[in-house]
């Protein structure tokens, strides 16, 4: 069970050093294999899309034109049984954008 003790701002630095040291002992991988919490794809949720064939081009435009994308990998993820494709997202919608570089803050 968690001990439920909070820390103060003055203790923050020491806590961070301890956390980083533990990760170093464990061995920080050169690149994270997956960022599991939100939002690892940045872009638009398309709930009512027209021609799916046009989506890759739209994703490419997002990745190229959005300043924060910095040339990220264009991606579209289609979810839901209706599409018959990867059930990666809930709700049967599409996210069209780019994959955020997980090493951006390294």
């Amino acid at each position: 069970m968690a001990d439920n003790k909070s820390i103060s701002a003055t203790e923050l630095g020491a806590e961070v050093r301890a956390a980083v040291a533990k990760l170093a002992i464990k061995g920080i991988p050169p690149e994270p294999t997956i960022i599991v919490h939100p939002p690892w794809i940045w872009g638009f949720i398309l709930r009512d899309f027209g021609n799916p064939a046009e989506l890759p081009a739209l994703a490419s435009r997002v990745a190229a034109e959005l300043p924060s994308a910095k040339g990220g990998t264009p991606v579209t993820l289609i979810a839901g049984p209706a599409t018959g494709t990867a059930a990666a997202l809930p709700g049967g919608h599409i996210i069209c954008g780019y994959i955020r570089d997980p090493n951006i803050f390294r």
Partner: protein
Amino acid sequence: MGQSPERPLRCPSAQPEMPDAQILGVVRGDTEERRIAYLNEFVPATADILTQAAPAIPGEVFRLAARCETGKCTHFDGERCQLAVRIVDMLSPVTEQLPPCTIRKTCRWYAQEGRAACLRCPQVVTANNEDDEVIRRVAGASPAAAQSAQRT
């Protein structure tokens, strides 16, 4: 449940670049039992603080809170945060008392799932590299999605 219309809800597992990010806590413990030590005051997630996580990424060391991005986030289905739903459905509580969290009044997970989310919250690590199938499923990363998110 405690949702104020004047104050937007906050995501308790935010990314550093999200608006109004603050330090919610720091990851403590070993791989087998990592738990969040919650900060007892507001500390903005400044670049100076976040770089202290190097060579790890901030999400491996910190839990951050920031404004919930609703429709911009993969986990939001238009009404609810499905990440919070999965956390409550699939993870066991790790505490019997509410953690000393500073954002509860505006927390998306608490507003949506109540106390059940809080009792599971301390085990959530935002950037998780563990090869744990349950964690992947909680994160909403199916094998296909995980493959898409992997970098070559």
